[in-house]
């Protein structure tokens, strides 16, 4: 039985400063509408433009989205930031309306776009449970019935009559999620709730979501956490630039997603006059290639990464080293390696270097590569900053915990439990 049927949904947003000079535009639009003409500020010819961006300052966040979800299904929605996931969720949860198209729903919808919406800091935990429950669509009776269960789930029994402004952020989130988790909607929309709370709590949440699906209700789950999607969902869709590019089994869709990711950023090539550098050296190209047994172009924790650098040297008989820095997205340097010692002497012209980062060394996350050319192991001739950006994806055996491992590295260190 179909629970949700989405038919040709489009969503248009206006970019930039909304409100400036909009009165004239509004009047103009209204006048066109009154006469039954096409809205002059809405350009439909730009549909096929991948960037979906036209000169009038409008953007199509969603373009012709159609899908349906059945009873008891857990649908995963994945895609890069800005692919349209949030817009889709907002439309499904009625926070905003589509520009075109229609959605048909069968059953009560509850969304967990952000837990704790409507919590009032001055009210006690008890009062907030009722208020938040009602905001999420429960009646007072339903909340009263489930009150004890909610409190037990949250684990804040002791502080239930304390204003929530005195809660730690962890308690706050747990209470908020507990309320949301005890909704009994036919359709539940979940967005990244797993990013909050400790491991124990995450486990509880995942369990609750599985439960919901088992009871024949429908879940739409949006996440960046591929492991969680793989584990929880029965089907997945991949959004890219506002359209559905892949739909099917979660593992297949995730693979499509990983393969499409960041590929453009994995290599750069410059012509000599526009290349970064100075009078001593210029960068010709830098290229990152994942090496895997299965041959798939995926950068994951199980991929060996090969970085190839080509550069022009303009210094005669240079005693040369390359010094490569790898930075985490937050800016910390993860490691610094240099080419062989004692350094070789190189002549004027094009030179090549190769660096291999073994698999099972880097943890998941975004990393930057910078490198410099060094003369006589002391004098940097030029620092090529952030010439490469890549993201290492998760790939692991099934664990019941779906969080991110802490740390920048995740080396394969021998560690065994004797059993």
């Amino acid at each position, binding site marked *: 039985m179909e629970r949700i049927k989405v038919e040709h949904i489009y969503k248009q947003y206006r970019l930039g400063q909304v409100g400036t000079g909009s009165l004239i535009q509004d009047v103009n639009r209204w006048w066109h509408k009154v006469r039954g003409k096409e809205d002059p500020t809405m350009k439909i010819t730009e549909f096929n433009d991948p960037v979906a961006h036209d000169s009038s300052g409008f953007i199509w966040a969603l373009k012709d989205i159609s899908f349906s979800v059945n009873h008891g299904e857990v649908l995963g929605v994945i895609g890069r930031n800005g692919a349209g996931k949030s817009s889709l969720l907002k439309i499904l949860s009625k926070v905003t*309306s589509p520009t075109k198209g229609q959605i048909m729903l069968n059953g009560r919808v509850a969304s967990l776009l952000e837990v704790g919406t409507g919590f009032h800091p001055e009210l006690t935990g008890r009062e907030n449970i009722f208020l938040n429950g009602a905001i999420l669509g*429960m009646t007072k009776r339903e909340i009263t019935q489930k009150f004890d269960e909610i409190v037990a789930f949250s684990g804040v029994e002791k502080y239930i009559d304390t204003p929530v402004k005195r809660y730690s952020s962890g308690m706050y989130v747990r209470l908020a999620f507990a309320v949301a988790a005890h909704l009994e909607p036919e359709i539940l929309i979940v967005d990244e709730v797993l990013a909050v709370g400790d491991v124990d709590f995450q486990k509880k949440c995942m369990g609750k979501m599985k439960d919901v699906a088992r009871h024949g209700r429908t879940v739409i789950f949006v996440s960046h956490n591929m492991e969680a999607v793989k584990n929880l969902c029965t089907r997945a869709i991949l959004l890219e630039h506002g359209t559905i590019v892949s739909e099917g089994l979660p593992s297949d869709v995730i693979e499509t997603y990983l393969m499409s990711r960041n590929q453009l950023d994995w290599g750069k090539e410059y012509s000599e006059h526009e290349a970064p550098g100075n009078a001593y050296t210029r960068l010709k190209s830098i290229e990152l290639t994942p090496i895997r047994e299965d041959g798939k172009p995926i950068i994951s924790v199980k991929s060996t990464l090969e970085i190839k650098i080509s550069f022009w040297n303009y210094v005669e008989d240079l005693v040369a080293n390359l010094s490569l820095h790898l930075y985490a997205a937050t800016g910390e340097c993860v490691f610094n390696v240099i080419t062989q010692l004692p350094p070789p002497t190189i002549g004027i012209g094009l030179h090549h270097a190769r660096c291999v980062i073994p698999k099972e060394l880097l943890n998941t996350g975004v990393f930057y590569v910078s490198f410099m050319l060094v003369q006589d192991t002391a004098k940097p001739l030029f620092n090529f900053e952030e010439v490469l950006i890549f993201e290492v994806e998760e790939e692991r055996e099934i664990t019941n915990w779906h969080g991110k491992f802490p740390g920048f590295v995740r080396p394969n260190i021998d560690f065994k439990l004797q059993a």
Partner: protein
Amino acid sequence: MEKTKFREVITPQQSFFDLKLKELWNYRDLIMLFVKRDFVAQYKQTLLGPLWFVLQPILTAIMFYLIFGRIASIPTQGIHPFLFYFSGLTLWGYFSDVFTKCSNTFVGNAALFGKVYFPRMAVPMSIVISGLYKWWIQSMVLIAAIIGLYVLGVERTNVHWTLVLVPVYIFILAFLGLGLGILFSSLTTKYRDLSFLLTFGVQLLMYGTPIIYPLSFTSGLMRKVLEWNPLTGILENFRYAVFSVGSFDFGGLMYSFVFTLIALTVGILVFYRVEKSFMDTV
């Protein structure tokens, strides 16, 4: 495969005049919880707590008594000045409270509205109800003051039979505030300047409403302005009902009623239109 029948359809358009009253009724618990939240949150960590509901108009009435009664010597139709000001202020307080708070519905709740759906009308409705509670408490004080002054022999108040119409007056007052409030609320999502204008406008409106002076005190242009003001009929008729002064003005009452009906209709129409997409512009 059998065709599924869907219970709900989300489309870009809004049918022209759908009040969605049934949906609002389903969320009645939420409305009452909003009312409770307003009360609890407003006076938590204050020493006098809900006593402020009463103290505010009492202090204002005393201030008016000193400034307008004693210094400016504006007549009060023979009613004790305190009763005159206080009775007017309870009504005005209710109206301006509903009006200004409702006008902040969208902008003030943007964070909440952006994350979860519930009928947006629940917020202004809760404002109307919590305002009514406040007005009721203040009315008790008014009654106490009337009885007190009667017992002391300072003032003998004659209540008129039109007192039974007071609920109607309050009803009109509340919905006038609601209609104008939600209309402004919808407009401020696009044109933010309006919220500044509103603060000033409400202040000005108070002096253009017979609260510190009776209608009979005015003449010429001022009289014209007051006759256009939909609040005038309500205030004059209210004082007639409570103190039996002035006259029962049926025309003024009808004018207020029709004005309210129009303001409410326009307000609701615009509110429901804006409700669907305002998240994209805030």
